[in-house]
């Protein structure tokens, strides 16, 4: 049995974070705190900066051309945009689930073993244990245990997404970032992934970007509502959904703006 959950603390925090793509302001002065071991959903209409906010948490924003980042993002209190920070160490703390599953061009086994390998794990037995464990956590083990050496591309899209989950978990992260992880999936696979996220939230800090309000209602403990690059409202899910303070939040939840 797990010990009772201690008082939650802030895991990721942004302070006056602004992001520009070339000259377009994508995020405007965002200050938000993400609590640990809970699911935080970032919601808002498309183009509101949800994904950009998520990308700045693991500095994947660096990979986009001509972006400017102002302000700071603190993970465990450490400013990750500081020039002294080793970005690979920051990213290792976080597993990423993207909109479309992106299996690497290798076998199912190699996909899960990829992360541990690049971080230096060589021992075949250790790798095998790790691969099995994470495939089991992702709920894929029983379906693939007899064909671990087949190409990951041979899996269905839903299976691929669970493989990506296992791959992300294999580097033993503390945080799971999910960018509309079910938008390419069928309802059954969606339920699979959502169920997994729900199971994992006791051990991981989970941030999910979604444009599906119903998904946010099903999953989220906390909600961050964004609109046109600005943070409009954030707080516990029940509060934001049932008693939104801001007119725009109300409008979005009722479907007036989307």
């Amino acid at each position, binding site marked *: 049995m797990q010990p009772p959950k201690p008082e939650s603390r802030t895991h990721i925090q942004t302070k006056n974070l602004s992001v520009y793509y070339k000259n377009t302001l994508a995020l405007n002065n965002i200050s938000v705190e993400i609590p640990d071991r809970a699911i935080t959903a970032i919601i808002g209409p498309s183009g509101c900066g949800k994904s950009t906010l998520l990308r700045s948490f*693991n500095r994947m924003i660096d990979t986009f051309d001509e972006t400017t980042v102002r302000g700071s993002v603190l993970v465990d209190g450490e400013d990750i945009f500081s020039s002294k920070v080793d970005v690979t*160490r*920051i*990213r290792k703390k976080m597993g*990423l689930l*993207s909109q479309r599953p*992106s299996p690497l*061009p290798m076998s199912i086994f190699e996909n899960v073993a990829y*992360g541990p390998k690049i971080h230096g794990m060589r021992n075949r037995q250790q790798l095998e244990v790790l691969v099995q464990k994470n495939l089991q956590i992702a709920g894929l083990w029983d379906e693939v245990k007899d064909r671990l050496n087949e190409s990951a591309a041979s899996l269905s899209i839903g299976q691929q997404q669970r493989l990506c989950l296992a*791959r992300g978990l294999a580097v033993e992260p503390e945080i799971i970032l999910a960018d509309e992880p079910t938008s390419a999936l069928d309802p059954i696979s969606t339920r699979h992934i959502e169920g997994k996220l729900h199971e994992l939230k006791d051990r991981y800090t989970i941030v999910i970007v979604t444009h599906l309000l119903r998904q946010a209602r099903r999953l989220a403990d906390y909600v961050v509502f964004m609109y046109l690059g600005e943070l409009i409202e954030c707080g516990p899910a029940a509060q934001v959904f049932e008693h939104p303070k801001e007119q725009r939040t109300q409008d979005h939840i009722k479907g007036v703006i989307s």
Partner: protein
Amino acid sequence: MTVVELRALKLRIKPNFKPVNWRLITEAIFGNLMLVLTLLSSLLVVVIGLLLFQKCLPILETHSWAELLFSSSWFPLKGDFGFSPFILGTTWVTAIAAIIAVPTSLLTAIFLTEYSKKKMRTLMNPLLDLLAGIPSIVYGMWGVLIVVPSIKAFAATVFKISISGYSVLAAGIVLAVMIFPAIISVTLQVLTGVPVELRHASLALGATQWQTIKKVVLRKALPGVIAASILGVTRAFGETMAVLMVAGNVARAPHSVFDPAYPLPALIANNYGEMLSIPLYDSALLLGALILFLVVLFFNGLARLVLIRIEKRGF
């Protein structure tokens, strides 16, 4: 069907006599014209191949393939036509060119797609295209003026040997520079074809950029990179002018990179049209052309096959 519907149908199929429709006729004429032109140009490959073969028949009737390909005795006046020195010359020169050009182009293409900023790319791409557009005679001049003396000096100071500098190495270097843009541009296309999500997936796991390139991008792009290299090397096979100017053109098989070589295209370009009074000489030279033609055709086909397979697999 009701009566009304039947009547409506009848009305619709009533014959109507339209005037001649010139638009449709023009359409047909141009469509067919372009078809014929397309067929003609692709037929040309077959025609050239057949013509070459027919012209080679006299020498093929008097000499065996084995003798022609493997004998190193080249004395046209005596009727000895051993192509071995030229085939080996071409092989050496092309191999040196490939050894220099393939890794360098690959790293350049990797830098441009993975590391460089957009500004750098927009600046470099036209420059590389320009490199491809330089006439080969200019490369030849550059080879004679810069590369050949440098090799001579290099061999003298480092290896303490005295050579003219006209050598396999000189031809290889000049050729490498010439096939550089071709390999880079195809490799660039292949690398940009690798989905960006794959890179993100790897980077997000904490891989460095170099790990991502080595283990994910290149793995995905490998067949394309191979095809790009083959295409480049194929160009090196047939390249004539620049090679002819710097290779030294001595009809002996080279034994080191500092030896002169006499590649097949240079042999043909230097001699065809001269001394054709020697019996079988023109037939022999055309056999050289046929060999080149077949080799280039083979490698080109190979590269295309690989590229087609990639396209089908849809990356």
